């Protein structure tokens, strides 16, 4: 099973039905597969803040959701995480394609990448980088279950070791 299929299967197993995203090249197969699957309601807003706000509102109304983004998109989120998601104890799932490391040619991505883990750590948000195909299902399932059991957000980071490295 490809990594993106494993992500969607784990989301389904955890009753996650809403996918909001801001596009990313690495995430394109996951985004396409979500659009093609009638299980998911898929929304592509204009900014990551919006995407996370939609997931927050939907969860309070009984629908679980996840926001897909790339590293630079995560960098736009600290205010929303610190003033909505964390204090209101909302288990928003985030899936972040890690850019700016292991061979990225974009200087902006490389610099902004270094802010991601310090922000997650400072806000006390659970995060884990997935590096291997055969870990995808276990990690996505475990982090989703823990997020909903503990009313806490979680960041799933997709390492280039998973999404770009060829055997």
């Amino acid at each position, binding site marked *: 099973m490809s990594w993106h299929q494993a992500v969607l299967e784990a989301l389904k197993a955890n009753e996650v039905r*809403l996918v909001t995203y801001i596009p990313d090249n690495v995430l394109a197969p996951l985004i396409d597969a979500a659009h093609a699957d009638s299980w998911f*309601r898929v*929304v592509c*807003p*204009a*900014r990551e*803040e*919006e*995407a*996370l*706000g*939609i*997931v*927050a*509102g*939907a*969860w*309070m*109304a*009984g*629908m679980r*959701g996840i926001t897909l983004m790339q590293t630079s998109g995560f960098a736009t989120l600290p*205010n*929303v995480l*610190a*003033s*909505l998601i964390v*204090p*209101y*104890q*909302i288990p928003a799932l985030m899936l972040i394609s890690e850019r700016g490391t292991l061979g990225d040619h974009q200087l902006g991505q490389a610099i902004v990448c270094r802010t991601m883990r310090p922000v997650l750590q400072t806000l006390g948000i659970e995060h884990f980088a997935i590096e291997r195909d055969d870990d995808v299902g276990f990690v996505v399932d475990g982090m989703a279950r823990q997020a909903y059991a503990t009313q806490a957000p979680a960041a799933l980071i997709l390492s280039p070791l998973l999404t770009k490295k060829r055997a």
Partner: protein
Amino acid sequence: MNRFDLTKRLVARLKRGEAVIGGIGNTNFDLWAAGPRPENFYMLGSMGLAVPIGLGVALAQPARKVFVLEGDGSLLMQLGALGTVAASAPKNLAIVAFDNGMYQITGRQKSLTAATVDLVAMAKGAGISQSDWAADETQFERLVERALAGDGPSLIGARIDAAPPAGVTERDAALIRRRFAAALAQKPG
């Protein structure tokens, strides 16, 4: 027109467990002052996200009407959300834009709507065709009735005065969330 007066007129018409999202600052302060409703969500931060939060609620519960109350400064901060609402086309979502042309809570600095920006025209341009300025209180109530009775999405613009809010929301985010989610777990009336 006055924000607290219009908020009371809106809330008085909500009989079926409609969800109301109160945007950051004076907007949710006046919603709080209009009386306790467990179906109210009060934003203590995340400026600009009232519309996305309301859209999430509306998508999750198509059978429940959802009202978003937002100020001009907040709406200006997340204008793309109007396009997201139009594209998602939730029939159960209505946005009320209170416009006093200023960042009232931070010292009355002028906002862009005091210069050239027309929020109703912005909403129409984004694709929310049912977007109207309420000329007075009577028309505001008529537009609220239209949103309650028919399909949305819609946006109601209301030019308001600079009167201070009638109260201040309690600052317990976890309690606000628990009460709101529990109320929304009940079937709408």
